């Protein structure tokens, strides 16, 4: 019989090896599934993991898509992970992402057609503030009245979605849009357009912010007292209070940071790859980022890798559907396998397997 035994100290080796093992296990299990479906498993795996980046036939389209997809996921996940480390559960990043896009985008549209250099920076600031303010609602309710932040932040997503629908049909509707819902297209308003900085890589300001956020978050969690306090609070609330941490204040900080980053992600998306505020421009990045945060073990560098990996399976998955006629459900199953193996192998960081009774 196999038994799990808790390790006295977490294994460093496994912490590093487990993602590699997980990806290999996914390739094997996924390969078997693709073979049963009648495709060449090696070709399918190559199409998902290799072709989007390196196959000259597809790379010109799909390579930029990688950062376009991974950028917002990473940016949002970095903020969420800081709170998650402290046991503060912001599940409503999707709503904060929407509010950032509406407020930041709305401020930009208010100046149309003025052409000035400060418009886009102002939009960025307002986008971040919009997300942060939306996140403050569950944070203050939690800190003052101890409401459940999971529930409040999640329900505010649906409120934000309704505001988004109202905005794209009403206040922010393009006056020259022949009655179609949706705002003016930011691609045709240069002062407010988040254009690609390096088109061949998909690099835009949102991706730059995501990379900066990774570096700053890594430093803060490792070297700054604020990051240390977040970690202590997540470990043990009582020990944290003994160390002088004020839990209510940490709730506010964690929500403001994650809301700010989610709001920024929304603003960069809507003014860049998204193009306009419509009632359906949000595509679930705020929820997927929760997966990315845990995929990265709540560690900023892990989130960077996790965001890129998840982004890759999305693009590669689309490619495989297109090229190999694989059913969409099989791609989702493949992504599910990846998550399963990543989380399953993480267990061995803290536990060892014992054989015997």
């Amino acid at each position, binding site marked *: 019989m196999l038994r799990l035994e808790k390790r*006295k*100290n977490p294994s460093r080796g496994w912490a590093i090896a487990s993602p590699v093992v997980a990806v290999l296990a996914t390739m094997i299990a996924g390969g078997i599934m693709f073979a049963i479906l009648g495709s060449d498993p090696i070709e399918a795996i190559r199409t998902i993991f290799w072709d989007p980046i390196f196959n000259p036939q597809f790379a010109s389209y799909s390579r930029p898509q990688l950062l376009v997809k991974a950028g917002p996921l990473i940016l949002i996940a970095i903020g969420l992970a800081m709170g998650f480390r402290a046991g503060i559960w912001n599940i409503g990043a999707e709503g904060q992402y929407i509010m950032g896009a509406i407020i930041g985008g709305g401020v930009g549209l208010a100046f149309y057609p003025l052409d000035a250099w400060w418009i886009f920076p102002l939009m960025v600031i307002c986008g971040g503030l919009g997300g942060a303010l939306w996140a403050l609602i569950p944070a203050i309710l939690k800190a003052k009245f101890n409401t459940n932040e999971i529930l409040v932040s999640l329900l505010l997503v649906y409120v934000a979605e309704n505001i988004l629908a109202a905005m794209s049909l009403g206040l922010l509707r393009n006056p020259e849009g022949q009655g179609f819902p949706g705002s003016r297209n930011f691609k045709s308003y240069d002062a407010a357009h988040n254009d690609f900085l390096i088109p061949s890589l998909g690099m835009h300001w949102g991706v730059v912010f995501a990379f900066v956020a990774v570096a700053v978050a890594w430093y803060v969690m490792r070297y700054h*007292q604020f990051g240390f306090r977040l970690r202590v609070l997540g*470990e043990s609330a009582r*020990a*944290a209070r*003994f160390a*002088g941490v004020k839990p209510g204040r940490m709730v506010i900080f964690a929500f403001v940071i994650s809301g700010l980053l989610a709001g920024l992600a929304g603003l960069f998306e809507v003014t860049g790859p998204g193009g306009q505020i419509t009632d359906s421009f949000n595509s679930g990045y705020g929820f997927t980022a929760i997966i990315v945060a845990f995929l990265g073990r709540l560690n900023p560098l892990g989130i960077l890798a996790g965001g890129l990996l998840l982004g890759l399976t999305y693009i590669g998955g689309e490619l495989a559907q297109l090229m190999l006629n694989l059913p969409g459900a099989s791609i989702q199953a493949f992504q599910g396998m990846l998550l399963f193996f990543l989380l399953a192998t993480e267990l061995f960081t803290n536990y060892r397997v014992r054989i*015997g*009774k």
Partner: protein
Amino acid sequence: MNHPLLRLDGLTKAYPGVIANDDVSFDIRAGEIHALLGENGAGKSTLVKMIYGLVQPDTGKMELNGGGFAPSAPRVARTSGVAMVFQHFSLFDALSVAENIALGMEQPPKPAALAGRITDVSNAYGLPLDPARLVGDLSAGERQRVEIIRCLLQDPKLLIMDEPTSVLTPQEVATLFTTLRKLRDEGTAILYISHKLEEIRALCETATILRGGKKVATCDPREQSASQLAEMMVGTSVTPASGAQTTTGSVVLRVDGLSLPPQSAFGTSLKDIQFTLSSGEVLGIGGVAGNGQDELLACLSGEVTTRATTLHFEGQDVSALGPNARRARGILAAPEERLGHAAAPDMSLTENAVLTGAVREGLAPNGIIQWGKARAFAERVIRAFDVRTPGPGVAARSLSGGNLQKFVVGREILQNPKVFVVNQPTWGVDAAAAATIRQALVDLAAGGAAVIVISQDLDELMEISTGFAALNAGRLSPTVPMRGLTLESIGLMLGGADAAA
């Protein structure tokens, strides 16, 4: 008798880097109270875990009543007639006694029938307990009764008790001993783990002593003196802390009219506490757990702030200051619960050094943590207090209780406190380590600091305190000089009577 009840033969269990038990063999006969003695880390816990099926030996075997016995899980051990009362209770505050007991049973009978059986057993063994009461309202002694009755309902042949008296008042200890002797007379074997040598000499017929994972001796404790037993445990002779008889200086801490409503459903309120504390003084605060000890420590450490003017330090009102502001001024504390309060379990010792040392040791100037400096500080604590650990990088939870206690107390003492408040400084700590900690507290006071020791161990308080006050139902008695107090007068104070009478 032909067979002993339980025969341990060459039990060995190794963990990475340490041999917890090395070829341990001894017999436990039916109807005896058998003491298991040893320092922290001597391998007592591992040994009883093997008997109770929580871990399996690497080599060696056990025989129960002459038959092979290799429990793969506690459930198997329980069906074979082995029961255990743990040092830390696993009870739910919000459930009743009967509900708690039903939770631990494989096939609990109907509630009414169970309540009847609980009452029967509790009457038969002199353990008064109302099955309908909420566990949250029970004293530590009564909670232990719940655990004992839970075991007795299984009709055990061997009852293992891990440090059962550390949470009890002298009266409760007497009740417990009566129960244990009655069980023994009925043929139940009891394996009794304790640090209190006098207790063992009073209660047990046989004692097995472990040191460094090996069996040192099996002897009759009644024929040995306490210091002989201690020497066998430690390997060298143990000297008690030299009493604190320093002259006291000026008043550093003044507590006046400190009251606190209960912080949780089962918390205790503090009622109009007042005392003064001078430098060089060791104030011993006695009392049974649950009478406001945790709450008092929280008020002094700054985890809970109280009404203005209730707390003066060196003449200044510090009532509104949080823990770190108080640390900056020199008020340090070490709470009772080591894991999860004084230390974060999954964090390394270095990180735990930052937990309280950041302010006074300057480990985080401008908010940037200096990990090198923090590590050096953790290493200093480890060296100064002989904390047995592979290094400061290991998780706090991987240390044994006594070693972690040395680290937690040492971490505060090395920061040169002006006022040091410690709750249960030697709870679950072996004799040698306890002596080290007590000596450090005495030395701290001799160096001019004021020390408050909150403890249930009256011997400890008599050994190191200069003054004594009793905490009872959230009220603190006036402080009286320790010199001249007898156990009897202390007992009266704990009961709420005025010591001056």
